[in-house]
């Protein structure tokens, strides 16, 4: 039986090195700005969490095997080789202290995409057997049961019953030819079932045809988080198969940051072909409906609200104005965090950090940056639109004894819909 080894890890790193990677490594000017952009470095003050350092295994493979200088060093026996011990040591840096939020990539003055390279480094870590247990179990469960939390359709079916009895509406399931296929994350099904209810209400209100699929209801992608394209591609294939079976033209990703970037941006590259449908985040769909006048709301929240932009949505996908348009619809007293949108600070839990129990302490340390931002504008409630961010905000605020409830934007919109006669 085959197993994961150092050789396979090195081969995977080698396979990840492409022209951009080479250009990035050779253009790094060691300015250290990425450190200043990283909550894990700033809140621990430990220089080992500097983003560029997290790339050292990948950088060494590049230098040793792809550069003239590295080869000369090799001839002289001066190469610093990547060893199994090194990968073991770097496991914490690559997984525990990086949420793949990409802030380092946007601040880099020479334009190096550090986030993309950490994603690449993870490919080598998985192949050499150095991935955190939490992410390994999540990946195994995602492949074997269809959900990283081991959730099955029957659990969702129970939630659907609750939604139907409380709203009096029908949740469409396996409806062929619907316009939208709605995907969920296990976190939403278990922790935030109000999200499904909100969608049901809003889509009924706006007269949207949509459906869930029993074939595939989960779009979170543990393969992306752990950093393995084989697992990631298989999970994407399941979504594509479900969408094709139901012949939908649009797919809505869950309110889960990495699931959105996985299905929207990485998916077609992973499976090597374009989708026969388009992918949206629910916030984009809601803002389109708002612009088309298909969402009618009444009344506004009058307490002071602020917004946390999920990094996958705002920084990596440019969905920034949409959530503000929606906030304007239902909030009277909205205040932005000082750094928001493209430059917002990560909550600290994304990129698999929250699935990795060992990283708990670091995750809370990174959250202090968000906490400081929230304290600065002192809102009465926080609003967000990513299940992982929301969980992290709730846990973090509780850990620091801050009594600021966190609400989902979709649910808030649903609460303000004009009642039908």
């Amino acid at each position, binding site marked *: 039986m085959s197993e994961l080894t150092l050789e396979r890890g090195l081969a995977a790193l080698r396979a990840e*090195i492409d022209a951009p990677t080479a250009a990035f490594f050779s253009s790094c000017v060691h300015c250290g700005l990425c450190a200043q952009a990283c909550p894990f470095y700033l809140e621990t003050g430990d220089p080992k969490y500097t983003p560029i350092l997290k790339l050292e295994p990948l950088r060494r493979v590049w230098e040793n095997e792809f550069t003239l200088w590295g080869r000369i060093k090799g001839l002289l026996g001066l190469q610093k080789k990547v060893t199994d011990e090194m990968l073991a040591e770097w496991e914490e840096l690559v997984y525990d202290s990086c949420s793949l939020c990409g802030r380092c990539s946007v601040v880099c003055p020479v334009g190096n995409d550090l986030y993309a390279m950490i994603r690449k480094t993870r490919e080598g870590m998985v192949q050499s*057997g150095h991935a955190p*247990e939490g992410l390994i179990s999540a990946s*195994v469960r995602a492949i074997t049961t269809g959900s990283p939390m081991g959730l099955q359709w029957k659990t969702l079916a129970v939630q659907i019953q609750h939604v139907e009895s409380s709203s009096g509406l029908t949740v469409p399931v396996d409806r062929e030819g619907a316009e939208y296929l709605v995907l969920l994350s296990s976190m939403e099904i278990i922790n935030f079932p109000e999200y499904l209810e909100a969608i049901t209400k809003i889509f009924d209100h706006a007269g949207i045809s949509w459906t869930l699929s029993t074939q595939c209801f989960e779009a979170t992608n543990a393969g992306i988080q752990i950093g393995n394209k084989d697992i990631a591609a298989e999970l994407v294939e399941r979504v594509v198969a479900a969408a094709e079976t139901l012949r939908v033209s649009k797919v809505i990703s869950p309110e889960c940051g990495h699931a959105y970037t996985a299905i929207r941006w990485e998916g077609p590259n992973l499976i090597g072909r374009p989708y026969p449908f388009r992918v949206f985040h629910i916030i984009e769909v809601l803002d389109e409906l708002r612009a088309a006048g298909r969402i009618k709301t009444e009344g506004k929240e009058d307490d002071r609200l602020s917004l946390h932009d999920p990094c996958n949505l705002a920084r990596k996908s440019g969905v920034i104005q949409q959530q503000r348009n929606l906030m304007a619809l239902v909030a009277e007293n909205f205040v932005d965090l000082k750094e928001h949108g493209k430059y917002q600070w990560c909550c600290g839990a994304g990129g698999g950090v929250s699935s990795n129990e060992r990283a708990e302490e670091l995750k809370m340390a990174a959250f202090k940056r968000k906490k400081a931002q929230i304290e600065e504008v002192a809102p009465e409630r926080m609003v967000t639109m990513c299940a992982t961010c929301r969980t992290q905000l709730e846990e973090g605020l509780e850990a620091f004894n801050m009594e600021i409830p966190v609400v989902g934007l979709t649910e808030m919109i649903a609460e303000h819909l004009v009642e039908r006669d």
Partner: protein
Amino acid sequence: MRKRSDKTLGESLRDHGLSRRGFLKLCAATASLMALPPSMAPAIAAALEQARRPSVIWLSFQECTGCTESLTRAHAPTLEDLILDFISLDYHHTLQAASGEAAEAARLQAMDENRGQYLVIVDGSIPGPDANPGFSTVAGHSNYSILMETVEHAAAVIAVGTCAAFGGLPQARPNPTGAMSVMDLVRDKPVINVPGCPPIPMVITGVIAHYLVFGRLPELDGYGRPLAFYGQSIHDRCYRRPFYDKGLFAESFDDEGAKQGWCLYRLGCKGPTTYNACATMKWNDGTSWPVEAGHPCLGCSEPQFWDAGGFYEPVSVPLTLGPATLLGAGAAGAVVGGGLAALSRKKGRDAAATRQPVTVDELEQKL
């Protein structure tokens, strides 16, 4: 009677009632202006005492008159000092009282009387010899023919402003008028470039003063700019430099960093690649300068600054490397790197081809 320009500067200054003490003060100011030690002041005094006021012909071509406007705001020496005491400004469109044929006659007379001795100062770029001459004319003559006629017997040419020195705005893509710089056209005479949009007024007068004092042109850099004024980058002399060194950058024009006076690099400051004296001499008699006013340096004293990417895009490529240098370096790099790149590509392809997919069973072994 001797011609006005035959008088020595010493005589001329005394004629204007300048005291000995006032004269030495002026020399000290001139020394400091040219970044010379104060001990040079007596030497400057001696030189100026004997210097003859040169005839200066100022030609304005495709320009906005900003450079002349800048000159009129010179403080040490002032424009009056310069015109009345240092030079004999025999022709200048904007400043001269004469008009029409009398004005052109003044130019021809100055050229005739000071053959081989006079200075030509040019501001504005020139439609080249292959361009339609009608794009810019003076008294019915094309800029190109006036320039070539005037510089033929000149001692030296000073190109004032980025348009004259490097083509400037008229030469920005797509360069509809075929604009060229003075140094593109004048090959057989010394050409000094005093770029800037506009140049710092004291830099203009300082270059002229240097010529008067030493009787020769100042030391120049690779772009023909006097090293005394263009020897250091804005970035190296910038008072915000400590923030750059600490990694403290303003992210927008109204954020906390901007209010704290942090480095403007990320807002597009071209200071690191721009050579000029703004950071030390400042503008309006040392009142302020763009970076002190909260705006990033545009790099206005550098060649092709209009086409060098957005003013608000951070520098990533050294702008002072001309296209030829970049092409040359690129070609050399391509030759050196080509073989290695081919090998690396093969290595990458082989690695991708032999990469083993990860299975769930393999992952489970690690639990």
